[in-house]
């Protein structure tokens, strides 16, 4: 165990496309929530046997927490589990919730990587998405982060926004490159059930861009960023150099254990996936009533045991997302005691024949990975393995 995720389910306002567990207008709960998280961290003490090497504050909008609170939580992680001195400590931050003082305090608290929810540098895109910030605030957030001393910045962008053109997307990409950041996450807009967008589309108030344009945008990003020296190491993630890949997210894609802390957080522990209760007040309530000695976390709502077969399937659909390295045959063999080429013989053969997968030689032997067409049509490949 070396990765810890802490969920911060608070936002200024819910964005139109968002279906994450987050609540606007519950700011008064932040202090109680903080205490509940401290208690949950303590609960897992006996399960964690090695110092934490990656800590991730996700949301919601974790940058809504006061810097002192973040410092306190980092300290608690160190106290309970130990913290590797080189640990990656990421915090998701939204423009409009940041100023130089706060950023400096976060840096001092130990945060060493920021993932900033820029989404677009175009104000009409930002309005369409229902974001609370504007383009100027987005640029300002980047420069303030640099001033505060952050040298590992990631920016989130969305493409396929209603009204967005290919030229508009190109401009976003150019500005992102010019900003000189170390890491980019580019997500194609997905219409999720229950969001404001889904509702608008159902009522014919919103038209999403057509599939061809979205495909063009994705291909443009791949080509342009490659030319600019970025490596696409995962379907939606690019970094300058392997050192700037997200260590934390790679834990997920390599199908390794991680602790999930907080309301609605998910974790993978002892061959089970678990998820915590989703509503914040109930999470706080249950944590408050808990007795330290209980064997099971009082906030876990559901535990799904992962069989070896499940684990192998998940290993493939997660591992193949890593577009550069793919799935190592020798690692697979070491972990499951079976040959990758045997377990998934039919699937691999079929996908190779369709030109969606390819074998590549690495130092530790062959790796199976998506071809360029395979990246575009990843779901067709993933479906084969489940």
């Amino acid at each position, binding site marked *: 165990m070396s990765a810890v*995720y802490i*969920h911060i389910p608070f936002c200024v306002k819910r964005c139109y496309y968002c279906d994450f567990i987050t609540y606007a207008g519950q700011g008064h709960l932040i202090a109680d929530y903080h205490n509940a998280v401290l208690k949950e961290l303590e609960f897992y003490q006996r399960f964690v046997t090695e110092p934490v090497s990656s800590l991730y504050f996700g949301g919601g909008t974790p940058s809504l927490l006061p810097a002192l609170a973040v410092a306190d939580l980092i300290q608690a992680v160190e106290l309970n589990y130990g913290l590797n001195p080189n640990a990656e400590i990421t915090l998701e931050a939204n423009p409009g919730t940041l100023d130089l003082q706060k950023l400096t305090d976060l840096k001092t608290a130990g945060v060493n990587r920021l993932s900033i929810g820029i989404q677009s540098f175009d104000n009409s895109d930002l309005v369409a998405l229902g974001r609370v910030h504007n383009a100027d605030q987005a640029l300002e957030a980047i420069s303030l982060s640099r001033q505060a001393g952050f040298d590992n910045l990631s920016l989130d962008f969305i493409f396929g926004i209603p009204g967005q053109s290919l030229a508009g997307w190109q401009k976003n990409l150019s500005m992102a490159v010019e900003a000189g950041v170390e890491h980019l996450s580019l*997500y*194609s807009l*997905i219409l999720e059930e229950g969001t404001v967008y889904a509702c608008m589309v159902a009522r014919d108030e919103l038209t999403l861009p057509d*599939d*061809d344009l*979205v*495909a063009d945008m*994705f291909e443009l990003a791949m080509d342009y960023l490659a030319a600019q020296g970025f490596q696409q190491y995962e*379907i*939606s993630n690019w970094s300058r150099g392997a050192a700037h890949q997200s260590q934390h*997210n790679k*834990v*997920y*894609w390599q199908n390794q254990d*991680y602790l*999930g802390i907080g309301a*609605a*957080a*998910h*974790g*993978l522990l002892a061959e089970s*996936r678990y*998820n915590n209760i989703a509503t914040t007040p109930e999470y706080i309530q249950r944590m408050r009533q808990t007795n330290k000695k209980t064997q099971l976390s009082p906030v876990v709502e559901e535990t*799904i045991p992962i069989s070896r077969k499940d684990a192998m*399937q*998940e290993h493939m*659909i*997660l591992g193949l*997302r890593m577009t550069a390295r793919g799935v190592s045959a020798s690692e697979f063999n070491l972990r499951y005691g079976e040959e990758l080429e045997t377990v998934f013989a039919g699937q691999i053969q079929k996908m190779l024949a*369709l030109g969606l997968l390819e074998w590549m030689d690495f130092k530790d032997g062959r790796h199976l990975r998506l071809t360029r067409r395979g*990246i*575009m*049509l*990843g*779901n*067709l490949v*993933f*479906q084969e393995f*489940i």
Partner: protein
Amino acid sequence: MFPVEGIISYTDTLMENIRNFCIIAHVDHGKSTLADRMLQLTGTISDRDMTEQVLDSMDLEREKGVTIKASAVRMVFTAPDGRDYEFNLIDTPGHVDFSYEVSRALYACEGAVLVIDATQGIEAQTLANLYLALDANLVIIPVLNKVDLQSAMVEEVTRDLVQLLGVDKSDIIAISAKTGENVDLVLQAIAERIPAPVADKEKPLRALVFDSHYDSYKGVIAYIRVFDGKISPSDKLKMIATGSRIEPVEIGVFSPGMKPVQLLEAGDVGYVATGLKTVSDCRVGDTITHALKPAETPLPGYQKAKPMVFAGVYPTEGEDYGNLKDALEKLQLNDASLTYEPETSEALNFGFRCGFLGLFHMEIIQERLEREYNLDVVFTAPSVEYKVDLRDGKTIIIDSPADLPDEGEIVDIYEPWMELEIFTPTDYYGVVMDLVKKRRGIYVNQDYPAANRVQLNFEIPLSEIIIDFFDLLKSSTRGYASMDYKFIEYRAGDLVKLQILLNEEPVDALTAIVHKGDAFHKGQALVSKLKGIIPSQMFVIPIQAYAQGRVISRANVKALRKDVLAKCYGGDITRKKKLLEKQKKGKKRMKMVGNVQIPQEAFMAILRLED
């Protein structure tokens, strides 16, 4: 079944106190509600045990508000003068596909309660069934229902009824079956106006089977009206038309559940539990008589059920073939008009060619397969039965368009023609005329049975009305028109085979036989419809329509360029996996033809060409 508690016990009723009747009504005009009120008022069912619409016992019937299988129930009605009557209510199916079954049920009665919805007025189906009732010499009691509603047009509909039936205004009973208002007057009218059955208990037994259902313990239950003679439980019986021998498991009456009795005699309505294994041994319209002392002639009117509409039925999952076969077998136990035989399709693999009385019958079978037997099935576009004269002098009969031989081998193709009656407010005269003309219909004559209403009579090929005709008629007349049809004869037609090629390969299950003049626009419409239905796949898929030796329309389904989950992090894995599983399952439901995946709805595309 129904609780026995609280049911009145029966004494021998004098034949003069028996009243056998049915209720004639259009769908939704309130037949079942009226029947429910009668059951309550006569104490046949206690208020406590009343489930809505007792007679429609299938879920599907309740949902569609339509009686699919006829049913019968005995009630005891005590008239205001203290006299006890035995009422036998025979329920009839309410759809054109079942007009033969309706005619047999009517034949078992002496009278009919004609229910007209005061908010809707008279409709074609009501008329069609009314004519059947008049043919059977029934006494008609006109009832105006839903008079409690604001939108009731009491005066107007009363005037129409007076004109239609030649009755006096005072003969019409205005009721609300929902509130129960004046339902007692209907019961009194049944006692007073409908004659007692005229029957001879001493003659050799003749009992009409007007319906049946299959019971896994007692075999086929024949619903009967005894016309002559009597039956006791120990009698050896036989069916005159099918020749089946019967040793009854029991005989009885419906009150409303099955209640065994020791004797059924002339005039009675009841049942014989035959022990027979399938309803096709005990067909509606057949006559039951004694095996040892048989009647010389059967009761008139027996016909063998003849399917008119045919469709391929295939399991979505190949492994369900056996289950589909079992389900069809079981459905046929209860439904002698359903036929099926094995069929193989290149596109859909192994399935069955099924025959139905009509499109409505087909829909019911489809829904029962899905709901009662939990099967995922694909129905191909329905077809009629064609007779084809070949150059070599032979005549073949085909019910699947894919079986039509090459044009060079054919001399003539004959298709079934129907007599079509459409009943509509006169405002929609032109609309209806246009619609029928577009479908190759021929105008015959017209009649004005009620004010502002016209009955139009046409002749039309069956193939033109089994596909979306009824829906179009309804939508273009704002739901006011209604229709009825029956078979006339086979006529030669200028017909051609329309084929669809996907990725250059013909798909047998998408073949249609169409009129030469329609081939071009139907081909085009089908291609553009399929283009919208077939999802993008890894490669471009050309779709072509082909008729009379040439491609008449062509379009391409674009290749799929991007399909990939953008986000997958720690919290998403389980959910994203489920999403992928769902996507995969959806794909598995599609049919593979060559290397093209075709969604099931593609096979029904031809049904909705005019959307």
